[in-house]
């Protein structure tokens, strides 16, 4: 288990955070990750395969995600990825950081639609 402090990775690049969130739902292959990211960002983020895999290679090198075995019955050429405990901790720390920002925005009355 990697012993890095999750705060070391903050603030996380947007795409990396989206990948962690997508894999938070469970192990997935690249195309499934893209589809989940499109869903959870309501279509505002639609990364290319190149951008996605460059981000995933770096997350893998940092120990935030790891390869997981391909589920039985799926195409064996597909590689599946999942969150590591460190990845989960980093996703939590980044979410808390964003939540604090959102709280601040709400305090400044920036979250409500203008009446």
């Amino acid at each position, binding site marked *: 288990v990697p012993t890095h402090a999750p705060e070391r990775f903050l603030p996380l690049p947007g795409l990396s955070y989206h990948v962690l969130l997508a894999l938070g739902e469970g192990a997935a292959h690249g195309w499934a990750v893209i589809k989940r990211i499109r869903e959870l960002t309501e279509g505002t983020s639609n990364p290319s395969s190149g951008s996605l*895999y460059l981000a995933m290679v770096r997350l893998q090198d940092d120990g935030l995600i790891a390869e997981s075995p391909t589920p039985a019955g799926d195409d064996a050429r597909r590689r599946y990825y999942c969150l590591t405990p460190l990845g989960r901790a980093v996703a939590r720390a980044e979410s808390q950081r964003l939540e604090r920002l959102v709280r601040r925005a709400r305090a400044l009355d920036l979250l409500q639609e203008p009446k």
Partner: protein
Amino acid sequence: MPRPDDAAARRLYAALLRLLAPAWLRRRAGAEMCETFAERLRAAGSPRERRREIAREIGGLVRVAVVARVRQPARTPVRRAPRRSALDAVRQDVRFALRAMRRNRAVAALAALTLAVGVGVSTAMFSVIDAVLLRPLPFDRPERLVLVNPTIEEWKHSPSLQSMWQRGRFSPPEMRGWLAAQRSFEAAGGFTAGSARVPNGGGAGSERVGVAQATSGLWAALRVRPYLGRLPGERETDSVAVLTYAFWKSHLGGDSTAVGGGATSGSTSGRCA
């Protein structure tokens, strides 16, 4: 069911990946990138959406290729060139230089010519400067030797003669008067330089050699001693010839019996210059 033109798009994507992306990224994610690209095409609904996805993928690939080259992951091992000895390095440099010259002969020839002219000009200039400025005169205590010329004031403002006004010549009576009167120098002598025609060293024909008439004081001023024979004394006037060592060797064959002989009343050979 993949459409027939999917294959062409996939080949294009694979070719661009090979061309643009750094090797480490291809090795680690190349196959998956191609696979994900194909799945995205299959998922595209309309032809228009398909075109948009292809454009997005290729744009992303180009951007990623640039970013991935700039920021390589630290754990990618960097292959270092094997250590070479200094001699190997020189050998390799020489081989490279020869190859480059063979490939571009005109440039090589021009460079060689430039070097040759440069070296030649520098050598010639140094030879002149060395002989004229650096090397002392071949006499004892050359720093105390002075050449005296009379000045001619009237020439100072003449356009054609002004360059010569400090380099006048003594007439023989002037010279005798000056030599008798001067007290500034330890020894002084006068000479006039010219040339004369003499029989060739080999016997056939004649040739012109440099000669000078000199007063006997010149030998004391130059502090020279004869290699052979004697130098003319004060009483003798124009009847004694002094030969240079080179002339004695080339025209008289270095014959020591030539001293005292010859057409004039007494010949002696001069000191080797």
